[in-house]
């Protein structure tokens, strides 16, 4: 069974929520990414999202834009990221999903990208600018490689479309908590709860919430509403804050992830 599916099965059986940290691969270097992923896995992160840097990240706010620029300046390539995933796999079984804009996939060829991702040890793909209608080729290639295909739903997505997207989803459904780009926010969007209620009526698949979640308290509150909590920009910000003291970078990020995880784990029992 795909590692992502296996993890969600176990979480459900245990009545727990998933905690999913996001790292911008190659920020500030791929060796740092390797250490960060292993640290997050060791702390107990359920799934890890690795962002492939793209020159024109239209779905991302300033934090991930800056991380992307740092990663590209450091010479990060898709090949390098696959090699990093391989190295992570030597010592960890943590479920890993790659988040990438579509052009790096299209450039390599959808089939080849999926093959190489799988060979390296990745478990799934999130392609935020690939709508489900244009995803046929990717769905087929990912299925052949047993990769999860994680689609996004947004507060603007109508119900019939949510169902269509949920049908194509394997692994978990990614609910975008707000109408906007990635980035830490002060408050949880009022759009979230109505969205989750609509999603629940369309699917039984696990639903994880991302975009905007920035601290343990918010993570805990979102964990009460969904099967999992995804934190990206706030973690990327922690990495950024420690760029000038690299010896503390991994430790400080690990600590922040531990706090977020503890908050998510404090919520137990079946979802309402």
């Amino acid at each position: 069974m795909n590692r992502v599916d296996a993890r969600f099965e176990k979480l459900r059986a245990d009545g727990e929520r998933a905690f999913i940290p996001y790292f911008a691969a190659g920020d500030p270097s791929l060796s740092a990414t390797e250490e960060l992923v292993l640290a997050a896995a060791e702390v107990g992160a359920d799934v890890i999202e690795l962002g492939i840097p793209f020159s024109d990240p239209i779905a991302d706010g300033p934090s991930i834009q800056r991380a992307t620029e740092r990663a590209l300046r450091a010479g990060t390539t898709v090949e390098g990221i696959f090699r990093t995933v391989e190295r992570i796999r030597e010592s960890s079984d943590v479920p890993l999903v790659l988040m990438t804009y579509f052009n790096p996939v299209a450039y390599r060829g959808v089939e080849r990208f999926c093959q190489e991702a799988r060979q390296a040890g990745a478990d799934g793909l999130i392609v935020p600018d690939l709508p489900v209608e244009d995803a046929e080729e990717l769905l087929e290639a990912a299925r052949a490689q047993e990769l999860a295909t994680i689609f996004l739903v947004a507060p603007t997505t109508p119900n019939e479309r949510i169902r269509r997207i949920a049908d194509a989803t394997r692994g978990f459904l990614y609910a975008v908590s707000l109408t906007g780009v990635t980035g830490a926010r002060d408050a949880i969007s009022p759009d979230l709860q109505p969205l989750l209620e609509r999603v629940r009526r369309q699917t039984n698949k696990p639903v994880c919430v991302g975009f905007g979640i920035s601290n343990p308290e918010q993570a805990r509150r979102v964990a009460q509403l969904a099967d999992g909590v995804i934190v990206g920009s706030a973690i990327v910000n922690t990495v950024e804050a420690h760029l000038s003291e690299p010896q503390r970078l991994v430790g400080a990020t690990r600590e922040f992830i531990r706090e977020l995880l503890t908050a998510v784990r404090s919520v137990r029992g079946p979802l309402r």
Partner: protein
Amino acid sequence: MPLRADARGRFGEFGGQYVPEVLIPALQELEAAHRRYWNDPEFQAEYEFYLREYVGRPSLLYFAQRLTEALGGPKIYLKREDLNHTGAHKINNAIGQILLARRMGKKRIIAETGAGQHGVATATACALFGMECEIYMGAEDVERQALNVFRMRLLGAKVTPVTSGTRTLKDATNEAFRDWVTNVRTTYYLIGSAVGAHPFPTIVRDLQSVIGREARRQILEREGRLPDCLVACVGGGSNALGLFAPFYEDRQVRMIGVEAAGEGIERRHAASLTAGTVGVFHGARTFLLQEQDGQIRPAHSISAGLDYPGVGPELAYYRRTGRAEFVAVTDAEALEGVQLLARTEGIIPALETAHAIAYLPKLAQEYGPEGIVIVNLSGRGDKDASIVARALEEKLGS
């Protein structure tokens, strides 16, 4: 009949809607509104009213006699989009989309701009209809197009410099997309060229097609026959498609799109159709400039309006099927083009337009005096005066 995108918003393999999920419902809403109003006589009447009374259409189809003589080949006609209000073809699109936005109940307009021509056109249309307007412009372009920045602000628009990435048009477009992702419920994204996710390329093409419809009628009146060849510069493709699309089924009419070769095709340039490869960028599958892993390669052109690493999907289809030919001219050749038109006709073209002019000496050799060529004179050159002055001084070594 112009070419139509299929039900999935594609021209052959090109086009589509490669955008974040948040925007898909907005694109569907836009598609429905476009379909409904584009065929609505009331909308058409209002659009025509503003084109006539405000933009000053129809624009002239001017026989450039001295240019024709200087080139010693075919008769050259200029479609004078430079004489439109605000000085370029961009206003045709801005007015049309504002009318659409009003019918959709949107109060806030955003746009990206490169040279500032589309920004000025959008700010103008917003002033005309009393709408809130924010223009995203690469920080580098804010510097090289200072006059247009001032014009936009004078018109009441907020101009937001974009400092990410290459600080030019592609980054301004990224930022406009991000704004739209965030404010999609209240905001209309008034895209400036025939690029982006479906239905934008079709909307812009339809609105700019007034250029070709007029030109077709005007040349038939003047010459009693269709032209042999159409020429237009290509950034995103809106002025080119505006001229070409109404001639699409006139198979005997040749079409040539002129891209920016910048410092040369072997060096930094913006010629995505001539020298690019197929990928997915700004919502569409199309030709673009890319490097390892599909990272977008920064474009370069002396002309801010052509300084873009992608191109609209419909022109990509024209290239794939051979319906149009595409060539590229360098920064230096474009400067020659500016001077050629200025000295033979007393018309100073925009640097974008100068690329089309610069290809004429070569093209002229292929036709005798019976030949007829129509060039889309997409904009006037006032905005570029300081850039041209600097470039020419450097060349003259003074």
